[in-house]
Structures are given as C-alpha cells and as structure tokens.
C-alpha cells in the first residue's frame, strides 16, 4: 500500500509539475558580500515534494542562493540579504523568526561529508536532542533507526551504531549526514553539491536516496553535474553571474531550453 501511494505521488508530481504548490518563494532576492553583489533580484520558487536542481558555472551564485534559504549566510559577518523569502507564507528573514527553528525546518547537507567526530548514534540523535523531539532512550533509538532507514544506511551500520561516524567510507558518511538532517524531520532539505566528494557508486546511492526522500521532503540541490541534475530533479534553475537565467521543468530544460545561455552551458560551450 505504501508502495502504491508513493508511486501515485510520484506520478502525479511528474505529470503536472505546474500545479504543485510552492513550498518556498524567493522574491527579488539579492545578496551582498560587503560591497560586492553576488545575487541580482532572483525570483525563484521551490515546489513542494519536488527536487529542484540549481545549476550554473562556478561563482554564479547558486550556493549563495541555497544558503539564503536557511539563513546559513547569517554566519558570514559581511553578508547582507535583501528581498523576501517565505516558507509556507512566513517570511524567514522576519526579525521575529528564530533562526534555530528555521534551520530545524530547513535542513542542510554539505559538499564535504562532515559527520561529527562522535558515534553514528550520537550523530543522528544530536538534532532531535537539541530540538527536544525525542527524550527517552526508546524514542531516540526509534529516531536513529528510522532516520538511518530513510538514508539507506541502516543495514550497513546497525551493528556498529556506537562506532565513530568518521570511520565510515565517504559515501556512507554523506548518507549519515543525510540521516542526521532527516532526523530533525525538516520540511525542506538543502543539498550543496552532496556528491562532489564521492565516487560514482556512492553517488548513485545518494542519488537514489534523493529520489526516495522526495516523497517526504522538499529538496533543493546544487550540482555541477548536468547528468545528475537531469537524473534527480524535476525542476531545474540555471544561474549565471548572479542572475537566474531560467527556471523550468527539468525535461524541458535539457531538451529545449528557453534561453540561449542555458543551451550553451548544457552543451558545454562555456563553464
């Protein structure tokens, strides 16, 4: 039954992308690092239960945009964000918004696998613990198992939950980081080139995982690999020199893009 509903959701999502409601809306988003402007009035919306891929050449602002979505840019002193970004209609840059709560709703997976140098178990339980999502040992055990299941790592690590997370292979570490993000039950997961440090086999596993996660989470992924964007995403946004060039259904983007620059980039003529 579970299988059926998942398949049904997927089908519906694939068929009528344009009817899927927006999860996050970015309106006229500009980002400045000190005097330097990194993003120019980007209008980009993220649809619910969809994988949105951000592509573009290095330094085009795609990672910067990604990091505005959970305010990770706040940690950089000189960084300033203008415009409006909403999550379920709520402005995430509103002064009344608690950034801690926001990051619990919008989780993040980084380019380089960065598990805490603690046990696998502690890696997964850290988020739930600080957010008070699970308190008793039984609850925590439950969270660990379900998160690792969702990240497709459970069978590989269930016998060594108390060994260090840094002792895993690169691909396993990255899936542990995904499990750690999933454990907080976020609504949106941001992924900043999650496979760039992984070998093709580990990459395939993570991509498969992204595909599965989509039924429960909204995912925004930055990637340098056009093939990856084509494989995992339903929507793709192309950035160039801090501007959003084009945002479209992935199928259309890779077959018949509206913008010449997208065409050129995808064909490998620049970048």
């Amino acid at each position, binding site marked *: 039954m579970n299988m059926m509903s998942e398949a049904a959701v997927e089908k519906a999502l694939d068929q009528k992308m344009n009817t899927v409601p927006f999860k996050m809306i970015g309106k006229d988003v500009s980002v400045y690092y000190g005097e330097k402007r990194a993003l120019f009035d980007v209008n980009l919306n993220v649809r619910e239960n969809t994988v949105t891929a951000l592509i573009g050449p290095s330094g085009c602002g795609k990672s910067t945009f990604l990091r505005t979505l*959970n305010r*990770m840019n706040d*940690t950089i*002193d000189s960084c300033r964000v203008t415009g409006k970004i909403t999550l379920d209609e709520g402005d995430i840059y509103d002064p009344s918004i608690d950034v*801690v*709560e*926001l*990051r*619990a709703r919008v*989780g*993040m*997976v*980084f380019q*380089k696998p*960065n*598990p*805490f*140098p603690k046990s696998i178990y502690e890696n997964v339980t*850290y*988020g739930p613990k*600080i*957010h008070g999502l699970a308190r008793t040992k039984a609850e925590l055990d439950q969270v660990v198992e379900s998160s690792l299941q969702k990240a497709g790592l459970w069978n590989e690590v269930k016998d060594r939950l108390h060994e260090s997370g*840094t002792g895993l292979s690169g691909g396993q570490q990255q899936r542990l*980081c995904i499990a*750690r*993000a999933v454990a*907080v039950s976020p609504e949106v997961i941001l992924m900043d080139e999650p496979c760039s440090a992984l070998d093709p086999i580990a990459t395939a596993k993570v991509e498969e995982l992204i595909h599965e996660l989509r039924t429960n989470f909204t995912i925004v992924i930055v990637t340098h690999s056009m093939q990856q964007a084509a494989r995992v995403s339903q929507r793709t946004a192309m950035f160039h020199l801090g501007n959003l060039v084009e945002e479209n259904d992935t199928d259309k983007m890779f077959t018949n893009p509206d913008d010449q620059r997208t065409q050129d980039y995808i064909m*490998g*003529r620049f*970048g």
Partner: protein
Amino acid sequence: MTEIASSSSSAYARPSATRRDIGIKRRYAAERRFRAYGMAAILTGLFFLFVLLWTVISNGYTAFQQTTVTLPIEFAEKIIDPKNERAANPSKLMSANYPLLVRDALVKALGIDPANRADVKKATDMISASARTQLRDIVVANPAVIGTTVNVPLLAEGNIDSANKGQIDLTVEESKRKVNDQQIGWMKTLTDSGAMTKNFNTGIFTFGASSRPEAAGIGVAALGSLYMMLIVLALALPIGVAASIYLEEFAPKNRLTDLIEVNINNLAAVPSIVYGLLGLSIFINFAGMPRSAALVGGLVLTLMTLPTIIIATRAALKAVPPSIRSAALGLGASKMQTIFHHVLPLAMPGVLTGTIIGLAHALGETAPLLLIGMVAFVVDYPGSPMEPSTALPVQIYMWANEAERAFVERTSGAIMILLIFLVVMNLGAILLRRRFERRW
C-alpha cells in the same frame, strides 16, 4: 572542460630539442648543504642540552645523599628535666639543653676527655646544630623516652657531609681547610664503627629554608609553588578560555578587536619582572594583600600565564574545521550549542596543552616573585596561601647565593627536582593531547 578535451585529442609530443641545462647537480648539492645545516643545528642544540644536563646532574646527584651519624643518645632526666616539672609545665621540654645530650653521646663514642674543651668543641661541630630540634621533637612527641637510651641518626654538619662525599680536598694545608685533621680521624673512627653512613636524603624533599645546608630542603618552597599553581589553574584556565571563545567566536571583527588581539600577543612578550611590579603596585600596595603570600604570587603568575593560554586556546579553536560548525548550525544548533557541544570539545587537547605549558612556564618563573617579597627565608610550611611562602625557583636562586659546598650540590639537586616537575607536566600535556586528539 574544453581545454581538457583539446589537450587529450592532440597526442603528446616529446620536445625534440635536448633539454636546457638547469643545473640539476647544483640543485642536489644545495639540498645536501641545507640538510647538513639542519643536522648541524640539531646537533648543536643536543650538545648544549647534554652539557646542561651533565653539569646539573654531576653537581647535583650527591644532593640526594646525606651523611648521618647514628649515636646512642641517653635521654638523661637530669639534663632534660632536672627538677621534674614536665608534667606541670610541658614547655620546659622545649627549652631543655639538648645539645648537651649530643655532646655526651659523642664524647663517649669517640673516647674524648670531657674536660678538654677544645676537642669537645671540634667533635660537636661535626654534628649539625639541627640535632637540637631533632632531639627536642623526639622528646616532645614521646616524653616517655626520657631516662632511656635510643640510637638516633643525627645529620652530619655540612662540611663533614661534603668531606665524607669526597668533595673537600683533604690534602690542602690544615689551616686553609674547613675540616681539620682531628675531625678527619674521628670521621674514620665513626665510619669504621658503622655509626657514620651515607643515606638517601629525604630531608631535601621535606625541610624548609635553613642556613645549615644539611637541614635545608625544598619542601616548604614546593608547597608555596603548589599553592600558586592551583591559583593559576583556577583563575587562568576559565578566564583564558572564556576570553578566547568570546574573541574567536562572538566578537565582531573590527579595529577594537584587532587592537585587543595585537595587545594579547604583546602581553605574552612582556618581561615577567614587569608583571612583578604590576603585582606589587596593585595587589600589595593598592589592594593591601599580604606580602610574600602565595596568593599574590598566584595572581601575578595568572596575569603572566593568561596571554599564553588565550593564544593557545584561540589557535586550537581556529584549528577546528569549519565544516563541523556548519554541520551543527545547519542542524539548528545555536551558536552557544555549536561551540560548547562541538567546537570546544574538539579544541580541548590544544587548550589543555596550552594550559599545561603555561603552568610549566609559571612554575619556573622567578623574577616577578622577587618583587612581591617571595624571596623569603621560610622555615615552616605555610598553612594557607595567605601566609608567607616561597617558591621552588626562588629557593634555587637563594641557594645559589650561598657559599658552602653543600649548598652547591643542593642547588643542582633542586634544579633536578624542578626539571623533573617540568618534564612530568610536559609529558602530561603530550599524553592528554594523544588521548583526546580526534582525527577526521
């Protein structure tokens, strides 16, 4: 991407012309020369270290031996308490004529005529004047000993001790020598009878200051140093770590914090005697704290150690990979949680190493203590950090100023003890780092 494609399409062609001479031989020679310089530098360092240790150890190892003369002391009631009033007035026991007991025992052991005052004087000079307090302590601790005869190991006088260890040249003319011929004869008699022996010197670890080398030790100074180390640890570690965390993680990066940073680095280079002057004017003259107290010494050393700890802690915090911070922040941890749950534990080995090295530095510091009156002749153990005390390196400094041969070896012996403390602390730092260091 395009460049890679183009370079891989055209076949790699070997340059046809012969290579230019770029001086490969000279390059290798330069490298060999550089290695030789490096080896020379290390060997020079090792040589001086060896000379230092050799000097200290060859001078100092004898400090851990002490000549004692074991005599059957008759605790005669007619000398200690002739009027039998000790029950009513125990303080009588404190002021009794104990040297007389030593004299009587010595006269009997050496077979000297008690009427020959000059000989008796020479003989009693061979025993340390500290025998008086030694016997007094025995009697006061157990008055029942009065009326019995007990074998008591008495400390030999410093020069006799040196002569017994072969450190005084006995071939020079008698009038220019600290030990006269008669005493040498008696030493031989006592040694042959088994009364004069060389034993392990426990006194150097337990005694306080004394003008008599045989009764001088570093015990009191070591306690003063311990008090100061505890004060430094209790104050410098929390203040230093808190300051570093604030500066490194919370403080805005602007001119003011730059200025603070530069000045912390400068403070680490301020001569320690300046900290002594600061302590003198602030803690003693202004705040009215007692002079010569370990409390003031500890505060001054705290000020001196703070920059070291702050610099080490900041370096350790900086060395924590930013990815760990991002990971915690990305999960919705607050800045405080990120720092205290992840960054600080990872920085802890560096913090502890810095702290221990700072403490070791403070333990060996002498100059500031001279200014706050800790160059003191302290005989009794200080009961609290408020009481007058002295410190290990200051004790070494004071002994180094003494003239007797026996103080020379004790100076080196005390240096050895101090060095052992420092080595143990540094080993502790290394072990802690090994134990807690995590790799990722």
